[in-house]
């Protein structure tokens, strides 16, 4: 005896645009690695590293914010630079840097996926593939760099460094990313 069909009881689902879980967790894990590896050789890096980690996490698990993820990554990056200044070994420093950049990348990916697809949907496969691709690229470039660094050994000519730096500057300008 009703025109009120069952439609009334079937509420629309909630669309959840928060950052997706897997990437968010991976980003925080990467940030944690970066903070931990930059910490032991320089006390000064500790507040920067863990501060960056906290800001990054707040940008993912609080109100989603790309600006805060970038800010957090910048904090982590500063802690890496400081740690480098205090004589952290190059190997540890590389891991720190990879952690920082992966945290930045994955954090942004989590926010982007949250906006477009939402965490109410299945997104794991995409996230895992994205994270592994990024990790692979980081590992490969770090390996190449480390190889050059190691074969060069100590006491290399300054002029060669300049040339490399010039190359980096021009590349950066050309790529503009």
């Amino acid at each position, binding site marked *: *005896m009703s025109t009120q069909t069952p*439609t009334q009881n079937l*509420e629309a689902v909630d669309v959840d645009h928060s950052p997706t879980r897997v990437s968010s967790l991976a980003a925080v894990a990467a940030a944690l690695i970066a903070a931990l590896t930059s910490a032991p050789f320089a006390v000064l890096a500790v507040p920067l590293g863990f501060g960056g980690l906290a800001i990054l996490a707040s940008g993912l698990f609080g109100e989603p914010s790309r600006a805060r993820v970038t800010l957090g990554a910048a904090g982590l990056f500063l802690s890496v630079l400081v740690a480098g200044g205090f004589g952290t070994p190059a190997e540890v420093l590389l891991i720190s840097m990879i952690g920082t950049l992966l945290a930045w990348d994955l954090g942004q990916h989590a926010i982007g996926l949250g906006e477009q697809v939402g965490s109410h949907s299945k997104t794991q496969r995409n996230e895992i593939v994205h994270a592994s691709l990024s990790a692979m690229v980081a590992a490969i470039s770090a390996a*190449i760099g480390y190889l050059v660094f190691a074969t060069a050994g100590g006491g290399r*000519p300054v002029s060669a460094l300049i040339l490399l730096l010039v190359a980096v500057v021009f590349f*950066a300008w050309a*790529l503009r990313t």
Partner: protein
Amino acid sequence: MSAASSLDDLSRRAMAVIGIVAFALGVAAIVVVQPLVDSLPSSFAFVGLFGAIAFVLGLWMFRARYRGGVESTTVLDIEYPMSTPTPGHDIDSALYQLTELREGTIEYKEQIQKRLGEVAVAVVSQRENCSREEAIQHLENGTWTDDSVAASFFSGGSPPRQSFMERKFGSGDTPYEQWVEAAVDAIVERADMGSAEDPTTVPQTEEDTGLRARLGLSSSTITDPPSTRGTNYRSSGEYDDAERVADGVLYANVVETGHWRGITAFGLVAAGWGIITFTPAVLLISVVAIGFAAYARMGTAPDLTALEIDRHLSNDQPDPGEPVEVTVTVRNGGDAFLSDLRLIDAVPEPIRVVDGSPRLATALRPGSQATFTYTFVAERGSHEWPVQVVARDFSGSIEREALVQVDASIQCVPPLKTVSDMPVRSQTSLYSGQVDTAIGGSGLEFFAVREYREGDPMNRIDWKRHARTGELATIDFRLERAANVVLLFDGRDSAYVSPTPGDQHAVDRSVAAATEIFTALADRGDLVGLAAFDTVPCWLGPSAGDGHEERARRIFTSHPALSTIPPTKSETEGHYVDPMNHVRQQLSPGSQIMMFSPLCDDYTAEVARRLDSAGHLVTIISPNPTADRTVGQRLARVERNMRVNELRERGIRVVNWNYDATLGLELDRAEKRWAV
């Protein structure tokens, strides 16, 4: 523009070449060639200069990154049903623009003043039972209410002053808002005294705030235009420049997402810092950032032509409100790895998703496939919709949007079933039926005994009386005739309203009720027709039979005038044509009218009055879409109540159908009232 961009391109290439040469020389200098090293400058100042340049450039890029956001394809929240405004939203938005945005101070004030004035006059003249002039007198003198603030609204006063405490810690309303609110409250109070019926309060609070929050509405006074949520891909002009690349695949935009924008900043700052401070390890780590920068540059927009999407529906002819389970399977039929694939099954507005998610983010190797499942509930109509695909390259710096047409579509046809009995009025056709008339003849129910007239059938002669008295008399039975009913719909833009934004709107509710009434009447042998006043003519003359029912069903399903999607603005604008014209031309004089309208503006009431004057008996079934959350909504509710009262005074029957009640209940209630 193109010259500039090509120059830009050229300079980029030149820089890249210089970079490559410098890199090669540097590596060579480190690893092998001693003479080369000797011929290069090696002063400390030189090194420092380049370090500083790199560092500054890096910082500048950080700033650019922090400012410039990330671009990506917009994906709408297709899960939600379309939202329709609540009556009174125009007042609320006028008030909002006036007080919050401080726009159109004069026009909006005039508009609000006029609306309030009209309602107040109607209320006062009805309640005081006086003429219009007297009512205006009352208003101007401020004698219509005890509330002095409200009284001053029409007597040329000014907004009440706020104390300092109120301004700082009060509700945050401006004095003008408070003034309007006081006036509306006074009108509401005045109108409700001895009102024919109390409008039930629509339950709201939690779900309502939830929905509003989802809509991103911070203030309670703004109402969302229906076009911002949900989407209709066929009518939106957004995809006009889309390019058809393969059978059923439409490429829309390619976007540079800027996901990696700023990555070189990390590299430059690290390199610069490493040089300045003479720490090779810091210089080394810039390699990771440069690696990512190159990675971000490598990608090209992914090719989606070989994507195979298949949609399976558990039922492609559901009743309105029946859940349908959808399984979408996507397969990568090409030979490239699609590393970042986002699929959104873009269901149209009248469909809402009730379980699962119509979206998927995945990655597909060539030949592999992925599936997602969700459940939706549809409203009337035939719906077909594409799958929106957003694909990114490996690094995520280039994004391509495509629409893939999928065959599966649904036909949502309202069932014609009898549930409640519809009381019709005494205007009838020539055909026999079930409406009791006040005329004697052949029938079932005893009506009268009259003198015998020649030609009266033998079986109706009162033989007992003849035996007793010898006179011939004839028994008359009540003549039963079929009614000739036209169901008339209000399908104009203004009828697409609902008490809360996500609710079923008045047109959907009207049609749902009409499908029941249609069969109820047809089963009784009445002749039923359909009509709507809208810019699109809609007319089905009163008739009966199976073929007729099928035609009616088709109109209910997919006639544009009764569509579940509100008419777009472009259809309603332009030169004004009275939407009733085509109905009036075809309406036969003996038809009674059953009108479906939320009665949210004067036009429908005017139509009802005119039809009534033309000799049609009019019954209005009016879903009540009003709410009382905001000032405008309360005012609209009073306006509507006044309209209903006025119509009832004229002898037009109005069934006020509240949203939380069933139609059967309201009809029972109304019938009791009419029987008195």
